[in-house]
């Protein structure tokens, strides 16, 4: 009698590299951003309903947790934009050599951090 054949291990054992990390992060930040945009819409509609809503939400956003969320979203949007540009370039058929995907992947990761810091400083000093 033959046994059911087992499935060999996959994601549990496969080593990550820059391109696969950027790809999975692109998906995760995509989902986060959709939720974020929905919440921002909700925020705007709540403000238009009453003034007390504005103050409650303002209090929430100015708390430590709120600031963390805003900073996190800034990163997730920065990452998504840079990664999407990388995808667009690849859709044109460029940048498929292994070392170039490593470089562009690193640019996306480091760039998203730099953009986040830049937005933070701009927000802090000028707005």
């Amino acid at each position: 009698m033959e046994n059911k054949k087992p499935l060999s291990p996959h994601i549990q054992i496969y080593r990550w590299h820059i391109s696969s990390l950027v790809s999975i992060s692109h998906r995760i930040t995509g989902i986060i951003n959709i939720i974020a945009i929905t919440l921002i819409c909700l925020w705007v509609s709540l403000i238009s309903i009453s003034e007390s809503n504005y103050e409650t939400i303002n209090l929430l956003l100015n708390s430590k947790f709120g600031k963390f969320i805003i900073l996190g979203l800034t990163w997730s949007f920065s990452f998504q934009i840079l990664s999407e540009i990388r995808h667009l370039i690849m859709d044109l058929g460029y940048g498929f050599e292994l070392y170039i995907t490593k470089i562009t992947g690193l640019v996306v990761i480091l760039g998203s951090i730099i953009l986040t810091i830049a937005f933070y400083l701009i927000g802090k000093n000028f707005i």
Partner: protein
Amino acid sequence: MVQINLPKDSQVKKGKYFKDKTGSKNLRKVNIYRWDPSDGENPRIDSYEVDMDNCPSKVLDILNKIKNEIDPTLAYRRSCAHGVCGSCAMNMGGKNGLACTTPHEEIDGDIDIYPLPHLKVKKDLIGDLDGLYKQYQSIEPWLKTNSKSQTNEIIQSKEERAKLDGAYECIMCACCSTSCPSYWWNGDKYLGPAVLLQAYRWIVDSRDEERKARLKKVADELKLYRCHTIMNCTSACPKGLNPAKAIAEIKKMLATANI
């Protein structure tokens, strides 16, 4: 569908430990995925201490050494040992490759050897590639020409021939397809990098007269567009080919209506 965890009957247990008997000082621990279809148990990881002083440089040499000197029950495919036949494709140190061309020096720490990922295992390191071969058959990988004169040679210029470079060298070892997360989750419908690279090879062949039909056939949400340029395929290919770029080229031909 995305399924992160392994099914219950596929979860890997700890197996036997084979201690070194040669008394060598230069030992390496090799952990190998084992599954025996005859005993009804779950797969397990057996560990072997291997004397590296008397072992040539490739991972396949380690496997041969284990089979010859330590544990003859170990099952794996191998044939040419020169990176030409593609039989000994497996997952070593978390990356797919050919055991016969992968130096064990490149793997840090213990050497973990698994079968190609997300396949039904037949025994130990042997995965079931029937699905992939069926998909390969589905793209009709042969020259199709409707020309009436079948006795004349079909001339191909050097430039036209050069388009096949980087595609015809594929040995169908399945390292790329089984490294691809999209292929793991949608392997029943998505053709995967190996088969798409071959589809591309026939699409760009100047002698083939079914280019349009071939393009039409792969232009499918699931067959082709599950590629999200994760690049696992290109980084796994033991022949240094670039399936991801071939897939992008097919997408580009379809997008620009360059049919």
